[in-house]
């Protein structure tokens, strides 16, 4: 919504400056988005007078004008307008100015051998009207203003407001004036409407058809006969232009004017084009309609249409039709002022993807009691400007509109806002805003004005009172520093730790979209159900991600293009296993690309992270089953021994997906679940000070034996004596059969109770050898 101070003063008697008004508007909830000089781009255009219009020496149709632009010297302008003549007052565009119609920047140029310094303008060139036949002819009153800017007479700014959807009443200048007035910014001026003589009944029959979901409940109309539609007078054109609207013709301009002035949308029909009568009804499926935006619409059933015997004339509250549109030669018009249901209007417009100033207002809720005043004001203006006779006003309605009443306990203001507010303040503010307040004991009965559909309960009234009183009057209360619950829960603490743990291993944290490219996602989707976005922002972001890899690999590749060959990236966030709330899991996903990196490198990053997260390595086991996007021979999963809970995957990403990239995924919910039921306080520990011995073993085993099994067997030989088992070499090659490999381990042996002697050590070594040889077809390498 836009306004100018000049227009505002039609409704508000105020001596406040524009700056004060802007500040106040912000403080009462009418947010000022922008303040701009009215039509700034036109301020270059000056009122000028042609002193002499000579014939162009080299062209029959051109004239060489000597123009007074309020400076010492006249300027020479070549002009093609046939009406250019001596003493004509017109508008001059200097070199450097931009012509609004085609956005061309004027330059000093030679036209048929004569230099032209600027241009004399037609209305169409300045977007004032479509008139392009000659240059503008200004009337005599501009004589004293030669050299002044034509458009910037008032020095006014246009103030653009962002009106919240609950305030349809402020989509008209009058509503804004009312708000400012209640905030102490002047007196609201009574609506003065010129009384005109009305003769005769409105004899075009209007019928509102009763049906389910009929959006129209009131239809007011006025017939105006024998008008002479024409261009609007300058003052009206300027008003519309100041809000950025294009003047069209007096009838159309007046309906627009009343809409912005009173927030009362109107529509004017060419009455001669209405076939017999007006029927407001619901549309039938596939009914066709050509709207004023020159587009054809194919209607659904149940849309509110204004029709006659021939068909649809307009979409109620949204847009009129071409067939009954008014033109300059229109003689008789029917003016409509109606009420359309917000919800139904919005639904229809949404289905047809149609937007208009009227629809914007009706879907927010138009004052049902403004039907009459809208018709009165508009018809009076039309008669004044275009002549003609206006009929009496006809109002058809199917529903009585009742004013809402709210019982209001004034104490609630302090209870909610925390600010003591006097009863007389409450009464005054509400009264100024148009509410009728009656005292009934300790309770107020408050009648809500018809233009405030947003006020439904006592908290709405509290808001009215406090926004006018000013939020700055509320005393702020220091927060209490008391904690009832821990800030983070167990899961969140682990999330936080995991994030920083991975980062501390040299990984940069990324945040990528939760959605991704379906094609890429398919590689990683596995068993999960795909969650498609119905209206994606682009076709390559059309599904929710089933894995964090697709986007991470995408950004990795982009960084490779930027010249970063070595990268470690990670993300912690959701992946989606369906399209219902809660069908998501939290994953920490890291990827690493580096020269000479291998699966043991990525495994180190992962295992160290798990360790830091409190997972005891002894509680887990490695499985080689991994999803298909991993290299089948170079990947693994980490699973808890108890209950087989999947904690993580790691490995080389399948070379078909991306070349030489390693990654891991930690499943945080699983990890936290395992941690919380496996939670135990650390047992007290004593550290043995007795002699520690180390023994090395090398076993020749089957080539496909997993080292993990071997280590496990040795551990289990004697849990109390074996303190560590560490593999230090794996060998295949000379001296070893081709289907075998040799694994060399260092075993640390220590007793908690005594120093072990040679015999003890030999015994345990023997036990290790025999256990291994027995259980996994191994031979001690000699």
């Amino acid at each position, binding site marked *: 919504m836009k306004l100018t101070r000049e227009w505002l003063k039609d409704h508000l008697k105020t001596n406040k400056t524009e700056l004060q008004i802007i500040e106040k508007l912000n403080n009462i909830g009418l947010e000022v988005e922008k303040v701009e000089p009215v039509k700034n781009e036109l301020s270059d255009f000056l009122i000028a007078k042609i002193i002499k219009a000579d014939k162009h020496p080299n062209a029959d149709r051109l004239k060489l004008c000597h123009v007074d632009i309020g400076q010492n010297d006249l300027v020479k302008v070549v002009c093609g307008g046939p009406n250019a003549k001596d003493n004509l007052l017109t508008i001059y565009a200097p070199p450097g100015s931009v012509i609004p119609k085609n956005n061309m920047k004027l330059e000093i140029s030679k036209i048929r051998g004569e230099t032209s310094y600027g241009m004399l303008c037609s209305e169409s060139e300045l977007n004032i009207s479509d008139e392009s036949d000659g240059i503008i002819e200004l009337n005599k009153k501009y004589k004293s203003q030669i050299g002044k800017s034509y458009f910037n007479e008032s020095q006014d700014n246009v103030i653009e407001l962002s009106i919240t959807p609950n305030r349809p009443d402020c989509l008209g200048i009058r509503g804004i004036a009312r708000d400012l007035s209640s905030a102490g910014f002047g007196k609201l001026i009574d609506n003065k409407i010129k009384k005109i003589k009305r003769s005769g009944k409105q004899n075009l029959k209007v019928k509102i058809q009763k049906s389910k979901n009929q959006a129209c409940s009131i239809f007011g109309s006025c017939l105006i006969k024998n008008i002479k539609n024409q261009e609007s007078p300058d003052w009206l054109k300027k008003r519309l232009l100041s809000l950025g609207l294009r003047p069209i013709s007096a009838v159309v301009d007046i309906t627009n004017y009343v809409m912005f002035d009173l927030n009362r949308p109107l529509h004017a029909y060419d009455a001669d084009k209405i076939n017999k009568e007006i029927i407001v009804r619901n549309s039938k499926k596939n009914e066709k309609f050509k709207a004023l935006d020159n587009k054809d619409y194919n209607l659904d059933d149940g849309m509110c249409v204004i029709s006659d015997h021939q068909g649809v004339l307009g979409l109620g509250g949204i847009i009129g039709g071409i067939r009954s549109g008014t033109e300059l030669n229109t003689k008789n018009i029917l003016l409509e002022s109606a009420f359309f249901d917000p919800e139904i209007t919005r639904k229809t417009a949404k289905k047809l993807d149609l937007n208009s100033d009227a629809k914007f207002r009706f879907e927010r809720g138009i004052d049902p009691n403004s039907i009459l005043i809208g018709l009165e004001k508009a018809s009076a203006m039309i008669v004044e400007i275009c002549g003609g006779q206006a009929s009496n006003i006809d109002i058809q309605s199917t529903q009585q509109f009742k004013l809402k009443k709210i019982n209001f306990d004034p104490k609630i203001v302090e209870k909610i806002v925390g600010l003591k507010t006097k009863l007389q303040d409450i009464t005054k503010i509400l009264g100024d805003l148009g509410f009728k307040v009656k005292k009934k004991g300790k309770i107020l009965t408050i009648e809500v004005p018809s233009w405030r559909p947003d006020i439904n*309960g006592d908290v709405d009234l509290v808001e009215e009172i406090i926004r006018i009183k000013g939020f700055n009057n509320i005393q702020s209360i220091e*927060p209490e520093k008391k904690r009832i619950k821990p800030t983070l*829960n167990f899961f969140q603490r682990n999330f936080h730790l995991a994030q920083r743990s991975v980062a501390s291993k040299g990984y940069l944290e990324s*945040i990528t979209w939760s959605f991704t490219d379906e094609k890429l996602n398919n590689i990683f989707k596995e068993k999960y159900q795909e969650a498609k976005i119905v209206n994606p922002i682009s076709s390559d972001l059309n599904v929710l991600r089933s894995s964090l890899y697709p986007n991470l690999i995408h950004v990795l590749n982009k960084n490779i293009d930027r010249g970063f060959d070595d990268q470690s990236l990670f993300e912690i*966030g959701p992946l989606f296993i369906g399209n219902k709330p809660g069908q998501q899991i939290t994953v920490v996903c890291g990827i690493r690309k580096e020269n000479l990196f291998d699966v043991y490198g990525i495994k180190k990053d992962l295992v160290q992270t798990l360790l830091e997260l409190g997972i005891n390595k002894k509680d887990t086991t490695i499985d080689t089953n991994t999803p298909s996007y991993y290299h089948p021979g170079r990947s693994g999963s980490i699973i808890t021994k108890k209950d087989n809970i999947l904690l993580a995957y790691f490995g080389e990403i399948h070379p078909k997906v991306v070349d030489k990239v390693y990654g891991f995924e930690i499943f945080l919910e699983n990890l936290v679940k395992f941690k919380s039921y496996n939670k135990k306080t650390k047992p007290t520990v004593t550290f043995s000070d007795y002699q520690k011995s180390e023994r090395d073993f090398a076993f020749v085993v089957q080539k496909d034996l997993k080292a993990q099994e071997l280590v496990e067997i040795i551990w289990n030989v004697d849990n109390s004596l074996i303190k560590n088992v560490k593999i230090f070499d794996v060998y295949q090659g000379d001296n070893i059969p081709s289907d075998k490999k040799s694994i060399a381990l260092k075993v640390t042996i220590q007793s908690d109770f005594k120093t072990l002697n040679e015999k003890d050590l030999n015994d345990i070594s023997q036990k290790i050898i025999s256990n291994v040889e027995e259980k996994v077809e191994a031979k001690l390498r000699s």
Partner: protein
Amino acid sequence: MSDFEKLKNQLINKLTEAKNSKEVDLIRTEIFGKNGLINSEFKKLGSLSPDEKKNVASKINNAKQELTKLFNKKLSSLENFEIDERVKNEKDDVTLPEKDFRIGKIHPVSQVIDEISSIFSEIGFNVEEGPDVETEYYNFTALNTPENHPAKDMHDTFYLEENMKTLLRTHTSPVQVRTMLNGKPPFKIIAPGRTYRSDSDQTHTPMFHQLEGLHIDKNITMGHLKGCLNYFIKEFFELEKIKMRFRPSHFPFTEPSAEVDIGYRIENNKIIIGEGDKWLEILGCGMVHPNVLKNSKVDPNKFQGFAFGIGIDRLAMLKYGINDLRSFFESDYRWLNYYGFDPLDVPTNYRGLSK
């Protein structure tokens, strides 16, 4: 002079003249070895009378002590000399680069979430979360935003079903409802998370981060709301004073509603937060609408309170001077390195928010 004395003096001379630790080591055997001077002299004791024995033994012991002292002195001086010699030749160019190391980084959004959590932790809020995929009901209806309401126009929603019943949450406000349904008042929570709107241009990304705040108790007023946000903004920007204004606004789920602006000015192309004559909108807030409380099974006659929603990315941009919102989600390696935070730099109440 006895033979013992003679031998002893010989060895002392030898020791004095020894030139390196190897020679000293050989002398060690001659003196203290199994058949060295001291041991052979002790062996002779057996043939002596008890009186003599005592005498000679003490003599040998004295000699042993003397020799040990001398020996250790010589050894350590030689060792020192040798280390000095070695060190003379060990000269590395320490201006050569250190070995490679890699420092990981925490994304500014994560860091700011931790900062915010730390601030609100101090005043008793706990962190709650909700799903990214929401139903129409939790995202709109329960929040007092009826179907076909123009307020929805401000939320360009991503839908996951043709019937528009499931969607990607457009704000973190559904967490309010979910939290209240899951517990009993009082509630004092914040809820950070990913939010989505199908909007993409210079200043909008289809995914962004919001922080929801909710405080419901028996008599929480707008005064508490003001105090809470004032505290938060001051702590977050680490400023003693900050210019702030509450502007009436409209959100279907709060009544009264307000938007909060903070003062700023531009100096040398840099934004200075907290003072100046320009205003910057940073959050929306208000008193929770009774309908939302009802939908959340909280009795609006007994409980009331405030809620607020803040754009986390925007806060990060303001605090850390990041200009382009879109860059947050592009994962440019240079950007992550430059704007990211050291993982050890954990914002805490006792250490402070930022390094």
